[in-house]
């Protein structure tokens, strides 16, 4: 079965981000979305450690240890960007000023619950960072993840079994095998990946998925 690779997934998410959006890209996979935002679209990337108007990674040798993103990687600032402190940064988030937040996930439930911070294993050292603030703060929270675990279990679930990050906060789930809308009564397939049918997705997830569209991801 054909799956989208990580760059294809990132490109697909990027397509849904309109010009002028204020966007926070979570650590890990979502960071890739930045590479696929079209250059001719002005989109404002926020990093919760205190910058807005985040630019691409600096050239080798140009790194500044005091100019980093939430993943602690060196970044740059676009002309027109600015710096602020942590309380202001999370005010942007919690106050509903960020239009779109893209996060990774362990699980997302059909009603939009998100689990992405803790495996729940008793000996794991928990670390939450800004995940809970991001999940519930943005006007729209997108999740970007592979649909299945390595063992083939669906990460889109009826009810999350991992500890929750936020309740009913996710609106859309971008996966390597299809795009889903969640919340508001259940999950639907918004877009199919070529070669994957609605029945395939129903079987893989074990969910009675509705269908909102007939589009195929290219």
């Amino acid at each position, binding site marked *: 079965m054909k799956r989208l690779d990580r760059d294809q997934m990132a490109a697909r998410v990027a397509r849904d981000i309109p*010009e002028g959006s204020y966007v926070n890209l979570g650590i890990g996979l979502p960071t890739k979305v930045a590479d696929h935002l079209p250059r001719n679209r002005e989109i404002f990337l926020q990093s919760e450690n205190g910058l807005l108007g985040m630019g691409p990674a600096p050239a080798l040798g140009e790194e500044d240890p005091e100019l980093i993103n939430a993943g602690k990687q060196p970044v740059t600032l676009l002309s027109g*960007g600015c710096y602020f402190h942590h309380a202001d940064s999370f*005010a942007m988030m919690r106050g509903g000023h960020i239009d779109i937040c893209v996060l990774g996930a362990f699980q997302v439930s059909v009603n939009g619950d998100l689990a992405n911070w803790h495996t729940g294993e008793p000996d794991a050292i928990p670390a939450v960072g800004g995940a809970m603030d991001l999940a519930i703060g943005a006007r729209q929270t997108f999740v970007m993840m592979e649909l299945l675990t390595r063992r083939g279990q669906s990460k889109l679930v009826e009810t999350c079994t991992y500890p929750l990050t936020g309740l009913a906060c996710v609106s859309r789930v971008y996966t390597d095998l299809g795009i889903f809308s969640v919340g508001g009564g259940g999950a639907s397939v918004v877009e199919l990946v070529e070669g994957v049918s609605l029945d395939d997705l129903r079987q893989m997830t074990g969910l009675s998925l509705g269908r909102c569209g007939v589009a195929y991801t290219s």
Partner: protein
Amino acid sequence: MIDKAAVSAEVAVADISDGASVMIGGFGTAGMPDELIDALIRRDVGDLTIINNNAGNGETGVAALIAAGRVRKIICSFPRQSDSHHFDARYRAGEIELELVPQGNLAARIHAAGAGLGAIFTPTGFGTLLAQGKETRRIDGRDHVLEYPIHADFALIKASKGDRWGNLVYRKTARNFGPIMAMAARTTIAQVSELVPLGSLDPEVVVTPGIFVQRVVEITPGAAIADLDAATA
């Protein structure tokens, strides 16, 4: 390309409609966005709820808005002043509702709205008339009053410089409520004395990041009269 610059004050306030809640920056006349208010007065909208520190000084700004009969309610800390006669008259005539809020609670409630908090326990006002009927709680040996955020549909503020992304810097004590009102309103409209090219504001000194600002309109000081002439021509 994102360009938040509006061509005129008229255009900038064109979607403020009857019954809107409107935060207006300024402490006294410092930071008062007079030209945006004038443009609002020229629109035929009423029943407004105004959030400002005062209830108007003299004949301009918030005072002019009140004089024009557009204000149903005002949320402020210090309405009565030597030159607040327009408010005084309307208030005594029962034509305007007043919600009096201690200045620091006003700032904290506006800030809480911008920061997405549901409510705050503040010590200010405990045991006074202004806390009557409000929930109170003793925390860590100090009495507090539960206060709720103040949101608004619009904020009209005045800054010194702005760019097309909405980044703002202010001048001296004209800063006052501008930065927090920008955070608390759904649509923030800033009049700036100078619209500068993107990138000319130092990223370290931007006071209000563009994310909090939806529209910027350049009002060169001294140009107000010409503007008014044009509008009435």
